[in-house]
């Protein structure tokens, strides 16, 4: 038995290691199990989190949906952050599903760990100065994997500017303008005042939504909850 003991220990450790990888790489079953119960019962809710107002960010903010919509979502995002890229289609889907009931705001929060985050935020803001923030926002997020590996991203974003019909010369000037810099700075100040230190950080009617609740299935339930609380559903 003693001769076998080391081999038994080794096999047990191997089993535990492989077992935990297999168990933890199957997350699909879990969020669904949490999200699928009846839509009336208790739900994962961000309402535990306190409402945060924070200092104002860039004015006017980039928004979609009517100002008086019952549900307001504010995202602090970084264009180079992969989970933000994944969240982009989710938010787009929510916008389509909830339409006029949802007001969406995007705030710039370029992280220092990302080389191209500030140029990307500047490109989106510069497009915003010609009234096409959301078009640029979508292009930058949808092509994240293409430009994030580039050494110089400016020509890529100028290409996007041309594609969405911007005045490219003006865009090139605006990207480096004080106004764009100031807007990013103000959004960052707002982020800090609301204790945002990672992206995407999403606020639903002023309350922070836990990162785990950002998949479409859970977010939809949370928005429904807010609509119900507001008496519009």
């Amino acid at each position, binding site marked *: 038995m003693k001769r076998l003991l080391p081999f038994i220990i080794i096999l047990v450790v191997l089993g535990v290691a492989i077992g935990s990888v297999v168990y933890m790489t199957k997350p699909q079953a879990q969020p669904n199990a949490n999200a699928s119960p009846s839509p009336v019962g208790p739900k994962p809710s961000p309402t535990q989190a306190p409402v945060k107002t924070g200092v104002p960010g860039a004015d006017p903010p980039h928004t979609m949906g009517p100002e008086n919509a019952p549900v307001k979502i504010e995202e602090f995002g970084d264009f180079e952050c992969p989970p933000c890229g994944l969240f982009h289609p989710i938010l787009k889907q929510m916008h389509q599903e909830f339409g006029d009931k949802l007001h969406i705001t995007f705030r710039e929060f370029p992280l220092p760990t990302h080389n191209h985050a500030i140029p990307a935020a500047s490109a989106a803001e510069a497009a915003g100065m010609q009234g096409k923030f959301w078009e640029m926002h979508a292009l930058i997020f949808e092509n994240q994997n293409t430009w994030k590996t580039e050494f110089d991203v400016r020509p890529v974003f100028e290409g996007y500017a041309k594609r969405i019909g911007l005045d490219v010369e003006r865009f090139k000037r605006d990207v480096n303008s004080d106004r764009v810099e100031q807007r990013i700075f103000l959004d960052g100040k707002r982020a800090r005042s609301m204790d945002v*230190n990672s992206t995407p*950080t999403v606020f639903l009617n002023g309350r922070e939504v836990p990162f785990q609740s950002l998949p479409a299935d859970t977010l939809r339930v949370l928005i429904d909850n807010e609509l119900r609380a507001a008496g519009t559903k």
Partner: protein
Amino acid sequence: MIKESHREPRQSAIDNRQSTIPLYVAAALLSLVGLGDAVYLTVQHLTGQSVPCSVTSGCEEVLTSSYAAFSGIPLAAVGAAAYFSVFSLATLAVFGYRTAGLLLRPLVAVMVLVSLWLFYLQAFVIRAFCQFCLLSAAITIALMIIVLVAWKKGS
């Protein structure tokens, strides 16, 4: 007299071996921590982008960089295999398998070199540090020290 002189070196060899046992136990325990760390990183890598990007941590950056996988195999998984090997060899060494203790030396040496290379990549190429990768590097360095001490004691 002859008997005496025969016994002495043998006895001291046994003493030496005895005195290295706590070292190999420590190596086995440390490699378990390393294994846990590497398994966690492997899971993060495989489930992909399941952690938000953060002001303080560069894990997302490091784990999604082109250096995080080597011809399709996540580096963290290679690390997990390495820690598992260290654990196996150290456990066998505790139970008196001398060869296992000897094999630990080249294995840990390679791990130290790889850790240094990965540290260089994080510091100068990716320019982001991932705490879990740094923990792994620290464990490898500690393992190296243990193996060196055991080497000195065992010989």
